[in-house]
């Protein structure tokens, strides 16, 4: 049993206090997408722009991007594309693997982006989202915010469970 599962099991057994629901105006989910996470060489200028240009030239829609520097100084680039274009995306990046300096590559063929409105930059909305999902064994692959929305990428298999626990954690109109 992983450390995470052990923690979850203990928390379920002892029972965590149930916090008050946070009122939101809606939860949306995307169509089925695929996610790709690339590890690129860091530095002042990285190859993220080149990756996006290659995908753009192959008519690959990008519906979600998370980009940041990790602890080793590499650029972590998580992208969500239309699920039926996953092969096109992988093949087009494969051709340029060396020139892009791709150090690692992980993909999930079927994911959904779940978005919660409004976020309004409130810390507790993001916290509740992440904690509620993990308490219920759903591990978001990637999470980000825009000004009024916080979105997370989850595996398609976990969507029903994710929506059920979010409906329990947030108060919908």
């Amino acid at each position: 049993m992983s450390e995470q599962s052990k923690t979850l099991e203990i928390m379920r057994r002892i029972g965590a206090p149930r916090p008050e629901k946070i009122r939101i105006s809606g939860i949306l989910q995307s169509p089925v997408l695929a996610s790709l996470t690339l590890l690129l060489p860091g530095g002042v200028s990285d190859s993220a722009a080149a990756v996006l240009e290659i995908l753009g030239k192959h008519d690959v829609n990008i519906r979600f991007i998370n980009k940041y520097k990790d602890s080793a100084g590499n650029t972590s680039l998580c992208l969500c594309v239309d699920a039926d274009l996953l092969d096109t995306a992988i093949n087009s990046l494969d051709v340029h693997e060396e020139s892009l300096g791709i150090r690692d590559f992980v993909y999930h063929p079927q994911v959904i982006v779940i978005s919660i409105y409004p976020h309004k930059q409130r810390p507790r909305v993001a916290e509740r989202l992440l904690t509620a999902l993990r308490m219920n064994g759903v591990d978001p692959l990637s999470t980000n915010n825009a000004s009024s929305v916080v979105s997370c990428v989850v595996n398609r298999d976990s969507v029903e469970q994710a929506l059920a626990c979010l409906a329990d954690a947030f108060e919908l109109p």
Partner: protein
Amino acid sequence: MGSAETLEIYPLKIQRGLTQLSFLRIPTRPGATRPLFDLLERHGVPVRFLIEGCAGDYNRDLIVCIDSEAFTRLEPELKEVEIRMQTQALELRQPVAVIRILGPHFDIRPGTSSLLFGALQRADITIFSNATTITSSMCVIPDDQVETAERVIGRTFEVPKKKK
């Protein structure tokens, strides 16, 4: 790929004087990030930018941007938060700015994000972090590169002129 001239966006929203905090390699467990969000909530500090991603080996990375003035207030308490979150590294960048580009529908126009990233890269703008969803892209860049970034984005997309 659509022509850049046809892509209209809303006026840029720019938030300056921010600090980016990167909490790197936090163990993946429920409530791991709660100490940070509780601290921000208690002090009424808005999260201007947030991303979380996989760091491998059951770890997560969490990047947030908050106002630098708020960071100064919270700094004495951050060490304890870092310990409670069991984060393996906390990296700071300041001053940074968040530029929000709203409107070009990144999801239905292949190549739109490439237009943005490519234009900023050619102008030697450093994008520390980026969060893009359907209609908005938020870039964290060095605060002293904001004016250049504004000019570059203004040449890449059609931005409404500011009223005088």
